């Protein structure tokens, strides 16, 4: 009696826990179901490598290469800023700062992650964009550079927090051994601590990149929205999420444009999934090594 009741509990809980898998499967299913029909209209290479995205023209063009380039450029600018900044902050918190500062500093950095994306987007639009126009003399402050900076601000906390955890996990004995050999604290950090924490830092960077690729509101409000290949740091771009968010409200259900946007969503989903799986892989490998 008791054991059958135990088995029932276990079964029910497993079913409830399985709901995450179910939702993930439904997401994948619906992205494929609504996205794949676009490929009856044009080939995969026309879609992914096509140079013009004019979905409302007649006949429409559904080439998403400029959108992919926009996403890649924005992510590059964001990661190029956020990875050094995030790792440096984490090293300061874990290796340099006194314990009391760490206890305040880490939550403050994590609070940066709590800023709602639409508020960061508004900040980029009404504060950063005019500054860029006034001081750098660019035509429009809504551009690749601005969006990259705002995205960096949103991914620094992810990178910093995970890197800091990885640094904390490095045994103190390793640090002591290095210090006993006469290395300074900085040399110990560079030659002993950072290499031991490398896989954790790798995970942090991958998750940070994934977050920048998928972030929507910031690129929708700040990136400028032009579906062109970016040639300079101050060109307007239209990354994948911005395109979906800006257009989906106006498409007719089941039309070509609707399917094209779901295919864009599928592309976005696959690329963030890739970075997440790489991140899990790196983390998993190091956990097995112990």
């Amino acid at each position, binding site marked *: 009696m008791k054991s059958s009741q135990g088995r029932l509990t276990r079964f029910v809980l497993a079913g409830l826990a399985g709901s995450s898998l179910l939702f993930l499967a*439904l997401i994948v299913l619906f992205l494929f179901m609504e996205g794949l029909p676009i490929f009856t209209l044009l080939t995969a290479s026309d879609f992914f490598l096509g140079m013009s995205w004019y979905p409302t023209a007649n006949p429409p063009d559904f080439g998403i290469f400029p959108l992919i380039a926009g996403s890649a450029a924005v992510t590059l600018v964001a990661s190029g800023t956020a990875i050094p900044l995030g790792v440096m902050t984490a090293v300061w918190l874990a290796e340099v700062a006194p314990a009391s500062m760490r206890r305040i500093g880490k939550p403050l950095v994590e609070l940066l992650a709590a800023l709602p994306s639409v508020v960061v987007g508004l900040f980029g639009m009404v504060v950063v964009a005019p500054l860029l126009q006034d001081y750098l003399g660019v035509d429009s402050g809504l551009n690749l550079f601005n969006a990259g900076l705002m995205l960096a601000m949103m991914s620094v906390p992810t990178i910093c927090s995970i890197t800091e955890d990885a640094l904390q996990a490095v045994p103190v004995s390793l640090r002591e051994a290095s210090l006993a050999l006469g290395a300074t604290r900085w040399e110990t950090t560079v030659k002993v601590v950072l290499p031991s924490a490398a896989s954790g830092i790798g995970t942090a960077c991958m998750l940070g990149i994934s977050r920048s690729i998928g972030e929507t509101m910031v690129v929708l409000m700040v990136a400028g929205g032009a579906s062109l290949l970016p040639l300079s740091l101050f060109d307007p771009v239209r990354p994948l999420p911005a395109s979906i968010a800006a257009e989906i409200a106006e498409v007719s259900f089941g039309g070509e444009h609707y399917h094209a946007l779901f295919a864009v969503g599928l592309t976005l989903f696959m690329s963030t999934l890739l970075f997440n799986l790489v991140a*899990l892989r790196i983390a998993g490998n190091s956990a097995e090594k112990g």
Partner: protein
Amino acid sequence: MLLCSLRFRRIWEKFVFSVLCLAALANIAALFGVIFFIAWNALPAMSWEFFSAAPRNSMTEGGVWPCIVGTVMLAVGTVSIAFPLGVASAVYLCEYAGRAPLAKFIRLGVNSLAGVPSIVFGLFGMSFFVITCKLGISLLSGILTLAVLTLPVIISTAEEALRQVPQSLRDASYALGATPGRTVARVVLPAAFPGMLTGAILGLARASGETAAVMFTAAVFFTTKPVDSIFSPVMTLPNHIYVLATSGTQIAKTLPLQYGTALLLLLLVTGMNLLALAARDRLQNRPRF
């Protein structure tokens, strides 16, 4: 570096450490920069009317009361679905699954779900809940979409809380003859519950601040209808900011309203996050059993 004198190495270390400190300060500056700019510009908009009235005059005047109602209803609805589900998932993963292969799959699923971009949740919610399940653009569609979105946060916080419960407590319960089910219900869950609540708060914060997943599932530009059922569309604070800032005809005129709404959202979301962080700090530094 070997050739360098100790003196030089010390000076170099000081230099590098100050650069690192500057990097850390840059983050804090960004955080306070955003809060300060929004708050400073929002001050002129703050009035009783701003909180209590509905938007008027094609949204250029009035307040944000309907958006507050919509956001709170969405967030509370989301957590009331996602929290029980998340806690049940975490209990299974931590207390029942052991090394079962299913648990490994579920963990992979939860981790992947955590990395799905919010706009993809929006697309999914629109095609599944709004269109396929025929729920329409409604509070319910938004709540269900956001529940899926916040589930990973709640599961991982709840798992963390369960892992912090010392094994000795479980052992003591078993030694008294309690079954595993009774041990979980009477010993483990009560001990882990405060930690799990931080997850619920984080879920509330996440659901309140979310825009992209709600834009096509629950939120509308403007509605005068009161929210009288779960099938009504709602106005939300994040969506209101987006709409005012990008698609109004008088964007400059509504600037104070944009700042005001942003400040309100910022206070709501960062306030809840601070609460969760403080609770976590308290729990981590409390005396052990």
